[in-house]
């Protein structure tokens, strides 16, 4: 159908090659030969401009493929529509909200949802959106107005790089329930059970979400760093946060003080 240029990873090295994209399979023709029937694909992930295709086998074979956007789009569509996955026809809107801001040109796309081992794919003719299951932050069935009717939709909050994004899925309620049950099960590790956050810790969480650093949080909540550090420790223990950087506070030694004092002296004639 189409011979497309790609870069494909083999033994840890990226090689220039070609893939023949067919209706029911894609075949690597250069720099090595491999036939990949879409039906044999058990997982499909996307990381930046790289598709990670896992093909069933013992052990499964993983192909990492990079190419231009147009080629990757076609590959994603073919694989997501034919691979081994739980698939349903649905309307989706993704993203509908990004970082708390409504996406004004968001529209409903008619297509399919494919749920794979590690990723959910929203696929239409023009759009392919992947959501890694480990990036799903919350989900619920809620009502949304569609063509002046209140209908049941699945609201899915997930991370996209560092943005928190909301997407919606629209299909019959019974299917939504199957989907949400699957997602709840697949993301049960993210549930917080037992330990609740106290109000100050919850506020700290909200400020981190909004992008504030520790200095800003200390100032805004008027709490000493020691207390903030304890809250950070709790968030880390609960798996709700991760350390991005450790900032140090220092004071000058006598040598440093001497240097600074000398440096501000007026130059001698």
């Amino acid at each position: 159908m189409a011979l497309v240029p790609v870069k494909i990873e083999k033994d840890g090295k990226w090689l220039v090659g070609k893939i023949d994209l067919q209706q029911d399979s894609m075949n690597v023709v250069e720099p090595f030969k491999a036939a990949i029937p879409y039906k044999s694909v058990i997982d499909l992930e996307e990381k930046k401009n790289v598709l990670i295709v896992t093909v069933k086998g013992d052990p499964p074979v993983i192909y990492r493929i990079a190419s231009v956007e147009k080629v990757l789009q076609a590959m994603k569509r073919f694989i997501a529509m034919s691979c081994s996955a739980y698939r349903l026809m649905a309307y989706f809107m993704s993203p509908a909200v990004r970082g708390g801001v409504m996406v004004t040109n968001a529209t409903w796309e008619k297509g399919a949802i494919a749920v794979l081992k590690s990723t959910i794919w929203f696929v239409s003719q023009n759009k392919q959106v992947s959501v890694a299951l480990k990036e799903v932050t919350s989900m619920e069935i809620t009502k949304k107005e569609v063509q002046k009717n209140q209908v049941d939709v699945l609201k899915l909050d997930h991370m996209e790089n560092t943005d928190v994004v909301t997407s919606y899925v629209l299909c019959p309620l019974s299917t939504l329930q199957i989907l949400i049950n699957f997602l709840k099960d697949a993301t049960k590790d993210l549930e917080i059970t037992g330990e609740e956050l106290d109000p100050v810790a919850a506020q700290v969480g909200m400020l981190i979400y909004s992008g504030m650093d520790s200095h800003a949080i200390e100032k805004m909540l008027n709490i000493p760093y020691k207390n903030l550090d304890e809250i950070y420790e709790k968030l880390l223990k609960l798996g709700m946060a991760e350390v991005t950087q450790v900032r140090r506070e220092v004071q000058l030694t006598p040598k440093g003080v001497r240097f600074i004092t000398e440096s501000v002296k007026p130059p001698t004639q």
Partner: protein
Amino acid sequence: MGRILIVDDTLFMRTLLKNILFSGGHDIVGEAGDGDEAIAKYQELKPDLVTMDVVMPKVNGIEALKGIRAIDPNAKVVMCTAVGQEQMVKLAIKTGAKGYIVKPFQAPKVLEEIKNVLSS
């Protein structure tokens, strides 16, 4: 960069928005804790933009938006509310809101939305 009035009934959200907007180089000209105060402050300060919480005691954000639009039909008001209040989005946009942000929000996206509304 704009002169901004922040309207929210919680000090915490006002402080958070103030920090975000300040980091984006905006000038926070005033704060209000309810709709009545928002209308009065708008008249007094004539800001370039207002961030308006929807759910507030006494006069809510939608009523305050109406009040501000009565004073200045070209007022730039960005509504700010919690998730799950989509009906409010429609109502606010019908009433003349120029933008909408949903709590919780992320600083870069808020700044982007404010920039878009200010330049509209």
